[in-house]
């Protein structure tokens, strides 16, 4: 059976890496000149040489290019757990002609998301438990029938969208003894209709972000939902994890974009009877579908708001002498409610890293300053390059609207010592968000483990949270005998009325550390504890999954958890949706 146009192939591993991030053709690698390049032709960065990057990874992370830790070769059938078969279920499935596969590689691909733990296992270890079967429904009715069969034969289902989760959400619980089906939504990828009067569109849940935007663009529309993973993550996944997009200031997060949703549960279909902008009918059922992380059922169709594509998209940047005034400026922008489509403030570490990815071999400061308007150059030159921070901006709208927005932002910035840093420096920032995900695979090749984590926090605690969490990480690394100073960096990546979203990158060179992933997780756990102690949330958008369960009850209170549990036991008494996310579901 062939895959549908615009979707991932059924055999995703033919297009995507089996043991790392993104497309097979795209990766950072060392070329014959001894420089790091980015391969392929998909991205702006593809094909360029980055002469300073090598120096940067050597200096900042202590990477020794002669010390490689390559991945194991692609696993063969004998290294992949044997599939459990529930024969009655299988035979009914076959009778009803569902597309399915128990090919080991297909199953392995759906056994994981993209946490460090999972990728490290792919590269160096084995999964204990992986799905026993992959099934591809093509529409809602397929889903309903599959779920019925599963209930009938007591088979577990884990919905699988883009597989980009970074919370362990699609991993199979080790203790699950029933047959596990990975329900792959990739073939449910059609836009069912577009309603131009109400500016809404009905979309199947398996559609991938970039495909959604491409198809809408043909009609002159967009949803404007752009999570950094939009090349690979699916609409259903966004709903299931309460995703957040870069341009939420204009378009909103998934909860703001969603007008209607249909979910298939073990009890049947749950949905509202109308598609209205707002409703007052008791607790909003949308709000327990959103964020249900695959444990309540399968999201099949969603009605989303759409917008005409803006006339202009313009980048911009602001250079701050230091992180503190940068945060103060972000706060002011939020206060005045004039944030452009996107505004992000990266700290100095991340700024320097961005500069290291440049193709020019001139000094990083020089090439940065080349992007700054003449008028401001001398001022920016006076900043300490090892303190500088940059805010990157995306403006959208008509030319006049953008001009007004720009003026307002740069005026506010100047009150905080921020200088306009030019369009080019802004554009780079955003271009990098898509390729930066690829860098971890390079890092892993050279004994560096790394990952990101995020939180949301009230404005008054943003700075303290950033500083204290960084300090905690440095200290925990030291105490655990990690020989190289870790790389820790953060950015304030979203602004809200009452607070901000902060995003951290953290990695370290583990040469000489026998159990790097364990150590990594211990440090990350401490970092999370620190985040919570500093008024931060358990997650702004990645979700709880499995790796953050330990703090779930504390976060929502025991009673709160009980309520969520009660919904689960009503919707799914057999625990068919057995992914085990949010909290350990009672074994039946």
């Amino acid at each position, binding site marked *: 059976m062939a895959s549908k146009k615009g979707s991932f192939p059924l055999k995703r591993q033919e297009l995507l890496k089996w043991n790392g991030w993104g497309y097979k053709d795209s990766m950072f690698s060392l070329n014959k000149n001894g420089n790091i390049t980015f391969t392929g032709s998909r991205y702006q960065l593809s094909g360029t040489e980055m002469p300073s990057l090598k120096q940067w990874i050597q200096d900042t992370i202590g990477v020794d290019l002669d010390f490689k830790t390559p991945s194991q070769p692609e696993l063969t059938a004998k290294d992949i757990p044997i599939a459990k078969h529930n024969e009655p279920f299988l035979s009914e499935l076959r009778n009803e002609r569902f597309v399915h596969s128990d090919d080991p590689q297909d199953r392995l691909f759906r056994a994981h998301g993209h946490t460090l733990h999972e990728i490290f296992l792919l590269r160096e270890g084995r999964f204990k438990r992986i799905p026993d079967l992959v099934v591809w429904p093509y529409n809602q009715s397929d889903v309903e029938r599959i779920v019925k069969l599963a209930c009938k034969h007591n088979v577990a289902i884990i919905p699988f969208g883009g597989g980009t989760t970074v919370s362990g959400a699609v991993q199979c619980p080790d203790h699950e003894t029933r047959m596990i089906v990975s329900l792959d939504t990739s073939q449910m990828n059609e836009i069912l209709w577009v309603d131009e009067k109400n500016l809404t569109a009905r979309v199947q849940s398996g559609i991938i972000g970039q495909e959604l935007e491409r198809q809408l663009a043909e009609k002159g529309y967009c949803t404007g939902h752009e999570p950094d993973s939009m090349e690979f993550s699916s609409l259903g996944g966004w709903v299931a994890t309460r995703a957040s997009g870069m341009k939420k200031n204009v378009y909103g997060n998934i909860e703001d974009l969603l007008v209607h949703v249909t979910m298939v549960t073990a009890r049947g279909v749950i949905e509202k009877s109308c598609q209205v902008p707002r409703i007052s009918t008791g607790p909003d059922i949308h709000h327990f579908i959103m964020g249900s992380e695959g444990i309540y059922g399968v999201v099949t169709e969603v009605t989303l708001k759409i917008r005409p594509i803006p006339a202009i998209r313009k980048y911009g940047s602001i250079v701050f002498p230091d992180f503190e005034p940068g945060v103060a400026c972000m706060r002011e922008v939020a206060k005045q409610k004039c944030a452009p489509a996107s505004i992000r403030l990266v700290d100095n570490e991340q700024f320097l890293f961005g500069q290291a990815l440049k193709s020019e071999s001139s000094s990083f400061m020089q090439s940065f300053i080349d992007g700054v308007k003449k008028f401001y150059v001398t001022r920016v030159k006076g900043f300490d390059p090892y303190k500088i921070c940059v805010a990157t901006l995306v403006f959208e709208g008509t030319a006049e609207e953008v001009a007004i927005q720009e003026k307002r932002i740069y005026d506010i910035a100047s009150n905080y010592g921020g200088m306009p840093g030019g369009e080019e420096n802004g554009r780079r920032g955003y271009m990098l968000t898509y390729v930066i995900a690829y860098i971890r695979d390079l890092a892993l090749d050279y004994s560096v483990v790394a990952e990101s984590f995020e939180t949301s926090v009230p404005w*008054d*605690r943003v700075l*303290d*949270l950033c*500083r*204290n969490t960084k*300090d*905690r990480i440095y*200290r925990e690394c030291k105490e655990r005998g990690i020989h190289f100073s870790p790389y820790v960096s953060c950015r304030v990546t979203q602004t809200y009325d009452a607070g901000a979203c902060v995003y951290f990158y953290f990695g370290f060179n583990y040469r000489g550390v026998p159990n790097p992933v364990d150590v990594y997780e211990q440090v990350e756990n401490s970092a999370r504890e620190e985040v*919570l*102690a*500093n*008024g931060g949330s358990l997650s702004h958008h990645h979700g709880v999954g499995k790796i953050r369960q330990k703090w779930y009850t*504390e976060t929502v209170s025991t009673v709160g958890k009980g309520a969520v549990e009660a919904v689960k036991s009503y919707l799914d008494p057999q625990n068919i949706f057995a992914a085990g996310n949010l909290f350990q579901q009672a074994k039946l």
Partner: protein
Amino acid sequence: MGLQESFFNGFNYIIRILTEEHIVCSNIFVKVSFGIFGSVCPTVTIKDSKFNISINMASSTDHSDAWIRSNVEPATVDETFKDGYIDMLAPRRKQFNDLAWVMKKVRTPIYKYKHERGYEQLNRDVLHSDRVSHTIEKISRETKRPLENVVKEAEQILLEMAHRFSMTSVRILGYSLIKILKRLHDHIYVNVQGLSQINELVQEYPVLLVPSHRSYFDFLIFSILCFNYDLPLPAIVAAQDFKDMFLIGAMLRNSGAFYIKRSFRSDRLYWSIFTEYVQTQLYNGDHPIEFFVEGTRSRTQKSYAPKLGMLAGSLEAYFKGLVPDIMIVPISISYDRVLEENLFAQELLGIPKPKESTSKLFKVFSILNENYGSIHINICPPISVRQMSTGKIHRPLHNLEPRFLINITEREEALVEDIGYAIVWQQQKNMVLSVWCLIATVLLQNQQGIAVSQLTETIRWLKSHANSVGAYIDWPGGMTDEEVILSCITSHRHYVDLKDDYVTIAAVEHGDRLAKSKHIAGDALADAATHMVLVIYRNQLIHVFVPYSILSMIILRASKTLQILPRGETLRLFTFAVKLFAKEFVLDHKSVAQIFDNALQVLTHTGDVIVDYEGSIMLTESVTRFTTFLSNMLMPFVCGYWMLCEYIVHTTIDIGMGKETVVRPKELVRSAQYFVLSLIKEGLLADFELLNLDMLSNAVVSLKHFNAVYYETRNEERFVAARIPVVREIIRDLHCLSELPNIPEENLRQSASTSSLKAKL
């Protein structure tokens, strides 16, 4: 308070006299050197302010290629460096140019997140902080006072509180102080390790410096040290009392002291300003903050239980995630001889403060002709608040309120207490004890006098026992033990007499001011004063022995009537004693069994206590020279507490008011002292130490813990009332702890009634 003041007036005077010419000069010099040497200063920077001094100095004059220098006496220990200590004064003696030292360019390490700000900016930041403006607004709303009015009050409070740190003041003060220190002291030792530790810490985390507090000198000694070694100078929490002292108050303020009232929990405005003032300085790392966790100078020279207000106010900054951690550095400052020894002794006895007079000034001057030996500053390993809190508190509890509202949770309060105690124990543990402490201890047990040879032998014996329980004794090298002891006695000749190879506690010239003491016939108290000086030096070392002493005391008492003491009963008495003396000795009341086991183990290992297979103590075998000595050491305390109890019991019966008898706490203590004194005069008691008012008032507090007395407030004044049966119970237990002097009932009653009447007069 009165004594402090007078002392300080004197002190102030000394400084003036001593440095009169220099202050005048230095004012001029300051200008000149800024003007002329301005940029030259760095080259003048004196090498000795670096930690690698030992290396620098080692490679001086000797040019011969022998690997051992010929000019060094092999048997002597270099006095500049010993046991990891370095003498701060040595270079100041070698290089006479104190002016260059005081004008040196100071380059200190700074906290990595610090923003430079002067004290004026700091004050503005405090006034405009969320916390203070919130409180001001709230008070104005609730009391209907105009806002400006409350703001004014806040400004006034802050003005009185805040320091006005200036390097120039530090230099001027440093100049005078270094001269005084050189005059009074032989050496000021500091552990090198501690210096480099502080150097690193201050860059990484906010730091609290917490010295022990046994002399006024504690105030500035650490600042001078920081100045000398290029460490950031601390802001120092000082009690309000200093503030209004002429000259001194301002001088301290300019050197970084800030003033806080003793109790202000109920004053919201004050509390919020104080908290903000401290926390913002921690947050920004303007200065390390120095404070005395014991709250006040220890007149008794024993450590006091920690006062927790300042600590809680500081640690809140960590609990609420303002700072990544706070590093607490306990510092033990030990004086061979405490400048205030006499004053302390008199204060403990309640001898009233002397009137200002020229003759007294002469006395003050004589201080300058005395030698006060060495000071040891031992910077202890840091206590990380984060580490101490792991698993004990839950910081996210603060997420539901803005951080400017002051509140800490019960678990955090408990943690603050734990940390407070941990600090005091660290300080105790790292004290450096002098030979004189040993001598005082031995003499107090030999009040009739002791032959030099016997003294020497006893000291040697005691020293080895002290070492084995973890005391660090500063024993000079290169002399025989007898020489050490004789030289020590010479330098403390005011308090001991040496005649015909026989050492006794000195008889005192009875000064006129003692005679003026209204309460008590002067002579006895005057004799007691000398005695008390010895007591405070014994106290410097008593903490080392306390748990062993309690155990020994129980053993000795029981051995009079029994053969064997079961573990359970021993532990019961031990626990009773620990509780009884809670205010006397800072012990971990939460783990008494552990202290007990440890004490038992140590004494069995030294072979002093014999235990059978069931853990019972074999009493007769366990009466040794050491256990006897240990037991005697505690005698005065048991006796003193007992006296208070007896006094209460007898007055209550005698006056016939039963349980209802109430007195002011001060009166109670005073009249108990009379009671003791009259029994001493009758020859029924012998130990002057029982007159110690500090001990008697501790006993009152202790009785309150036992519910043997309780406080009552009448007309806003506090009174004490007793529950006689409980007091009697305690007396019974005291008898089980130790063999108490035999005093006829009749005498007790008589003395009690006369004393209580006297106190009323």
